[in-house]
């Protein structure tokens, strides 16, 4: 059995996989939606149309709950490399630690410095400063994603380093930062966050139209969302394909696992070009027990030629082969979702072209709206499966082809690993259940259409007086706002 699949190592992988999966539930939405909120704010300020502000205010409530969950699960991530993968952190520190340091300093703190102003600052700072804050939150969260993807991509394609005295020393920062995988990996992830953001907002809007509540307001959101998705969903498919081609070159074991591609050549000596729709790998991980195969498709996908050679698992020793089940099926789920989401964007655009994209027209097509609601959940699954493909496909390496996963695991006992896992199951599931419950509560309650617009209140209580503890009361507010 692969060393990485023995219990202590497998548990350390599960420990890390769990907290990562539970963190990636939140941050992509923060990144995507923060840009959309910025767009809504610009639309409001430019057009003076109050409805953009109402939409922004409403989605901001979901945004901040989501943001809180992201912070709650994110602090753990920053510590978890050292806790669970200490020797990896030590060895990779001169590059990987630097990048994580860049992330916290340039992005995490940057975002935290403006989020309070963005959410709670509406009547305390001017409109221009507020827009600036919204922009900074959006920009900082994207920058954060960039550094994280650079770090993770470097684990897939560790360029620009040499190994010396047991640690990775950087010889070329340029190559290490713009490593092969990062060039496609970051855009692929970033566009995924935009797709998630647009689809979640589109799903909420579709739900309101379906329920005939505030339908006129929310169709104003749904329309640009669908149009934007018509642009980004095909871009994502192209980026995904490009990343796949890159992985085929730079990380062939990962690609072979994603495609369940065991044999580079067929028994007759010709390249094996078959793409499996479904495959059941055997227990020895050296072939498929059963597969539905379409010839030539694999070569078309990965080499963009009719019968180019794609390296299979048999080109590598058994101890260097990743598990196939997870990457193979996770990858297929992600791709299927990608195409389905493209189809939804197309469908919506066709309705627009035929003039049916009105409250009336859409309500006559409840299936479009229902599938739109479903499409709000699918990008989450696509992001999960995509990340699992990436991480499991890299095994048994933590730094591809240099450092094996078991070499990077901290010194800890199985009991500790189980305690971590059990505790985080409880805490992270509570976060998940709580956040989604409160999303639904905010959505059921509906947007606030009555509160005065920012900048129109002359409430003396809101005026900011001289600071410090000597300040006069500046935040005397009425009692707790009434619950529905």
């Amino acid at each position, binding site marked *: 059995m692969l*060393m990485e699949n023995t219990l202590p190592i497998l548990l350390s992988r599960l420990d890390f996989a769990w907290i990562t999966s539970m963190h990636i539930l939140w941050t992509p939405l923060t990144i995507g939606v923060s840009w959309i909120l910025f767009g809504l704010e610009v639309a409001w300020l430019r057009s003076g149309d109050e409805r953009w502000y109402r939409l922004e205010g409403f989605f901001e409530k979901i945004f901040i*709950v989501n943001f809180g969950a992201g912070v709650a699960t994110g602090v753990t991530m920053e*510590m978890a490399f050292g806790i669970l993968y200490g020797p990896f*952190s030590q060895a990779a520190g001169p590059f990987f630690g630097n990048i994580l*340091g*860049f992330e916290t300093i340039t992005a995490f703190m940057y975002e935290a410095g403006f989020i309070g*102003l963005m959410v709670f600052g509406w009547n305390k700072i001017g409109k221009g400063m507020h827009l600036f804050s919204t922009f900074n939150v959006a920009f900082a969260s994207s920058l954060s994603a960039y550094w994280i993807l650079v770090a993770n991509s470097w684990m897939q394609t560790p360029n620009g380093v040499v190994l010396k005295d047991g*640690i990775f020393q950087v010889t070329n920062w340029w190559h290490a930062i713009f490593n092969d995988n990062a060039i496609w990996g970051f855009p692929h992830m970033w566009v995924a966050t935009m797709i998630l953001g647009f689809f979640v907002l589109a799903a909420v809007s579709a739900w309101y139209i379906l329920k005939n509540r505030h339908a006129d307001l929310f169709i104003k959101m749904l329309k640009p969302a669908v149009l934007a998705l018509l642009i980004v969903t095909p871009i994502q498919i192209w980026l995904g394909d490009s990343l796949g081609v890159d992985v085929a070159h730079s990380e062939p074991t990962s690609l072979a696992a994603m495609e369940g591609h065991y044999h580079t050549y067929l028994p007759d000596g010709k390249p094996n070009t078959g793409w499996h729709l479904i495959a059941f790998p055997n227990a020895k991980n050296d072939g498929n027990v059963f597969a539905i195969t379409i010839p030539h498709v694999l070569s078309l996908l990965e080499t963009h030629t009719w019968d180019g050679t794609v390296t299979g698992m048999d080109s590598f020793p058994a101890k260097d082969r990743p598990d196939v089940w997870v990457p193979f099926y996770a990858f297929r789920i992600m791709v299927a979702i990608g195409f389905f989401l493209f189809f939804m964007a197309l469908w919506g655009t066709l309705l627009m072209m035929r003039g049916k994209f009105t409250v009336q027209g859409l309500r006559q097509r409840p299936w479009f709206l229902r599938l739109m609601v479903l499409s709000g959940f699918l990008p989450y699954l696509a992001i999960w499966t995509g990340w699992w493909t990436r991480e499991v496909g890299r095994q048994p390496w933590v730094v591809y082809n240099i450092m094996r996963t078991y070499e990077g695991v901290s010194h800890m006992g199985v009991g500790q690993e189980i305690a971590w896992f059990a505790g985080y199951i409880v805490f992270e599931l509570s976060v998940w259940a709580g956040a989604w419950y409160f999303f639904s509560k905010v959505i059921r309650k509906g947007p606030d259409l009555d509160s005065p617009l920012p900048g129109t209140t002359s409430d003396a209580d809101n005026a900011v007086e001289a600071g410090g503890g000597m300040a006069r009361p500046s935040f005397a507010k009425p009692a707790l706002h009434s619950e529905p």
Partner: protein
Amino acid sequence: MDITHIATTLTTWWWLLLCLIFLFYIGLDGADLGAGIFALFSPDEEERGAIMASMAGIWDGNETWLVVAGGVLFGAFPLVYGSAFNYLMIPLMLALWGIISRAVAFEFHVHATGSKRFWGWAFAFGSLLAPFGAGLALGATLQGFPMHAGPAMAVHSPGLFVDSPVPHFSGTALTFLTPFSLFTGFGAVVAACLAGGLYLCARFEPGDVINKKAQTWTTFFSYLALMTIVVAIVWSYAIFPWAAAKWTGPNWWNWALVLVIVLFAAYKSMMAHTMQRDFTALLWGEGVVAILWFAMWATMYPYIVPDTWTISAAANPADSIAVFTLFMTGFVPVMIMYNWYQIWVFRGRYTKKASYMGH
């Protein structure tokens, strides 16, 4: 100047910055955490809600200094990051669970109706667990930890890194647990309680019910904190030869002076508190924390982790520390600036009736 010398200098600078960033975390989030512990004794959700609302716009920025400290430790001292955090797994886990529950409670409490009470408690207990875990971790760090080179996991398989000279943590899950580390866990809770009390006094209007209770609370915890400081100093002197050697070494009068300044600042804080000059009391209180913190780091020098990692042994390769310095140093004042701006925008006093407005 040769490259090693420059690298050592830069590394020492990062050690000082790390000290400063940890101090920001303790000073800023300590008050938030303490106010959360205060909320354990709140009679109703309105009061807990008001306490949460008073820090709604700033807690995230304050807490993020911890993440920055983690990032700087990883960026500048990966050898320490990868071994010390391994050693501190359980205390950090406890602190992180506390941070998780209070972070989400901030957002959930305001939207909750039926579960308001539950999230109120999650906020308060999280606020207690976080400083306890952090205090445990601090005490454990002062004790140092065992390390050896070789495979970290007991597996026998070939690999490039199995024979690496880099030392890993080699103790057990409970190596951190001693009477001293339990005491520092308790001490951190007391310190947070005091900071939280001072914060609440300054944050809520005089005469408001929260302000009144916080006044008594602060008086109680200022005496308890003084006792804790004395015990911590005596205990450290008894068990840490590296500390004893400095404190009663040839430069003993330096350390005596520090002690006098600490006592003076504590006295000023207590006086200001008695006269209800709350903001001044808070600043002097933070001053005590800052001086003690700097004194602790000065006592540890040249170690990052006493008897375990010296600054020079833990240094990153010259090239990495240079890049980190070049690109990151400039951001430290910028971070301080926007963190300060955010606190400035949300300054001022509250009343118990205050809460998230319509949020």
